[in-house]
């Protein structure tokens, strides 16, 4: 997390705020020059597409994630899938789950829905809370800042996993689980982004154009909205991009520990828990969710890094297209 913090702060240290309209175009141009980030973006886009189109894809396959297929497993041998590679066939593209015969492809794509949905929604909550608290702390009077900053410190210090485990254990089982996991992650892990936002807001507050706005009689709300938020865009977007894969990992870990989404709803973490004992007898059962999780987190992390470089003014000065110095910039990006 601290690495992410440094990265986000680096993105925010440019005293020049990224102007909204032309900034976006510039951002895309800078992002496009990084090949790794582009590949990652394509992979992420595909994953999102697969998740969104999960019902369609499984309909094409002719399967669904919850139906049992007892005829496809060998009951006398502990329920291991019949056939090579975990029972891969034209009907079951990635084979079937041991002990139940449920279709693994369907479970994987529906699992991706849960992972991505929870991670993205949690990120939105984290960003919203972080920006609101961070800006309010920076603009507030002494005691408001003190109060909000200490509150932020408390949330930064909270061990996310332990907090989540505790919260998920006490909430009644009738509460919809994916929503609950989203809320728990979102409301627990917003401290760091709030710190970045506060620091950046304090920097921006001292700049001439903000002073000018204040002198011309603008209210705090209007200044925050019109002058500060655009300047916060770069560090916030960078931080958000780094948070998404972190949230995916947290959701997977919570489901792995049995407090995440409930069966029969599939999720990668839950599949990993069920699969860990099968690594010798049915390796694909473990490798599929592990691989899916690995690719998702890797792609999102590389993309997040690309976003950071594209928004970092220091890197950007060396990045501009056509200077032939892309390689250096990329090297710095992966350092």
């Amino acid at each position, binding site marked *: 997390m601290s690495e992410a913090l440094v990265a986000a702060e680096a993105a925010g240290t440019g005293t020049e705020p990224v102007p909204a309209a032309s900034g976006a175009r510039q951002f895309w141009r800078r992002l496009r020059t990084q090949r790794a980030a582009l590949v990652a973006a394509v992979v992420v886009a595909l994953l999102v597409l697969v998740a969104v189109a999960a019902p369609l894809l499984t309909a094409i396959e002719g399967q669904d994630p919850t139906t049992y297929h007892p005829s496809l497993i060998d009951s006398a041998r502990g329920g*291991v899938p019949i056939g090579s590679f975990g029972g891969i066939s034209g009907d079951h593209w990635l084979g079937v789950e*041991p*002990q139940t015969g449920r279709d693994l492809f369907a479970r994987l794509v529906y699992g991706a829905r849960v992972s991505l949905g929870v991670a993205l929604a949690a990120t939105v909550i984290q960003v919203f809370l972080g920006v609101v608290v961070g800006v309010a702390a920076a603009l507030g009077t002494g005691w408001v800042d003190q109060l909000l900053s200490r509150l932020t410190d408390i949330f930064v210090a909270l061990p996310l996993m332990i907090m989540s485990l505790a919260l998920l254990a006490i909430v009644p089982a009738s509460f919809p689980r994916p929503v609950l996991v989203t809320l728990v992650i979102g409301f627990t892990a917003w401290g760091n982004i709030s710190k970045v936002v506060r620091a950046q807001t304090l920097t921006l507050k001292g700049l001439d154009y903000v002073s000018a706005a204040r002198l011309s009689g603008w209210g705090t709300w209007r200044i925050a909205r019109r002058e500060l938020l655009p300047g916060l865009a770069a560090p916030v977007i960078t931080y958000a991009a780094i948070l998404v894969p972190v949230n995916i990992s947290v959701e997977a870990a919570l489901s792995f520990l049995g407090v995440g989404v409930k069966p029969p709803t599939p999720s990668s973490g839950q599949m990993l828990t069920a699969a860990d004992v099968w690594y010798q007898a049915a390796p694909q059962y473990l490798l599929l969710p592990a691989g899916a999780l690995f690719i998702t987190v890797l792609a999102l992390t590389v993309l997040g890094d690309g976003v950071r470089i594209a928004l970092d003014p220091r890197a950007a000065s060396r990045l501009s297209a056509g200077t032939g110095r892309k390689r250096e910039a990329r090297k710095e990006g992966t350092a």
Partner: protein
Amino acid sequence: MRQPSSRARRVAAASVGLVLAAGAAACGPKDNDAKGSGGDSTPHKGGTLTVLNSNPQENFDPARLYTSGGGNVPSLVFRTLTTRNRENGAAGAKVVPDLATDTGRPNKDATVWTYTLKKGLKYEDGTPITSADIKYGIERSFAPELSGGAPYLRDWLVGAANYQGPYKDKKGLTAIETPDARTIVFHLDKPEGEFPYLATQTQFTPVPKAKDTGTKYAEHPISSGPYKVVKNENNGEHIVLERNTYWSTATDAERKAYPDKVDVKSGLDSSVINQRLSASQGSDATAVTTDTNLGPAELAKVTGDKELASRVGTGHFGYTNYIAFNPTVKPFNNIKVRQAISYAVDRSSVINAAGGSALAEAATTYLPNQKSFGYEPYDLFPAGETGNPAKAKELLKEAGYPNGLTVTLTHSNAKDFETSPEIATALQDALKKAGITVKLQGLEENDYSDTIHSVKTEPGFFLAHWGADWPSGGPFLAPIFDGRQIVKDGANFNTGLLNDKSVNAEIDAINKLTDLDAAAKRWGALDKKIGEQALTVPLFHPVYKRLVGKDIKNVVISDWTGVLDISQVAVK
């Protein structure tokens, strides 16, 4: 009539859990599959037997152990008045004499039981074993600081309900008489034809008063069996046993005691134990486990390898996994709803979730499918292998739910393939076909146990399991279906809240029988009668599969424990 205090019941609850865990763990290999690698399968004396376990032998004191039939490792050190027959299969579910000359001589109504000790019985220090020592051993199991055993003695012995043990109450239990050094007489509150089964538990082990060190006795209990404790580290994590030279086969027909030394190592992960047994390298070649079964994935691997498959033993322990209903919760107050669910279950998918046909057998009776329990096959709501959703829908319609219904199934989040999410999900899928939408409520293990065993919080529809303290219908049916055992405050096991006068009367009548075969038949008939109320849906009986090291010989697995009997194993 037995009306145990809520405290005793709670202890019972915890201990039953332990016994079940130990039983489940204790379940293992079958002899006719396992053969010595050298071709010579005759067992010989000598060598060191290694035991690789996950759970330590905590509180290795005969007063504190909760065992079925005297336990496995404990039975190497502690002899009891009676013990389980050390034979394969159903013959192993019989109770036989151990220290006593017979399994007990009852009076006419089975309220007084008399035992005579064999001649020439000695402890590890050569001093003779007397009936007074057995009385003392039982008395100290009542001491609060030595708790852990089953509640039966407190419930059954006359005037024992509030006894606090020999340290506080020097007078002792008047319910136990020792007219001479070889005779011991027990006086019970009510007829208990199954007393010989109870006398297999380690509380019936002789303890010499002069050597009693209270809570420290567990470090070095005085042996009456073939082995004595020479090392006990970290409260049973590592126990080393060597021959007790004063023990003799002349007085012990049950224990073979082939190895010279037994080295019990605990605290290992179950996958590590199975991995080490399958590799069988070094001392692991002569190793067994008394508490770790093969899981479904391990079974899949082992069955693919002929050599490994030949080292797997199979056993059956009296145990049933089932769906329980609380008939005071709607809609389960309607017997037609309960019957509909009975028809709708798909036992084949449940069995697959439990580990497949090699690890579970379909159950349509509440009693385990063994003769000693009085098993009488019946299938009152035939669901076939995969369920009968049409019949279930019909019943739901009659019950007033023509469009199906939505119910909540409570289960535990333990990863035990018994009351776990896998089983609940399989049922959810099966009931969907009958128009029953099942919502799942998973609870953490302790929370789950507390919730289902309290009359105040008991859900309407949940997964449950039950195992007996000894292989008979009594400890299987009475705690669950005797209406007088409903506990309003505290741990309640009569989850169906059944209080049927004719059932209660039949339980009392069977308890009077001292002919255990005749009693078994009546338990079987009673089980069928209770089954008509559809308060439970029996799902499956587990089968235990266990690996042994490649040089292990003479594997004996009884239907009493379902696991390899360590007293019969040879390493040479």
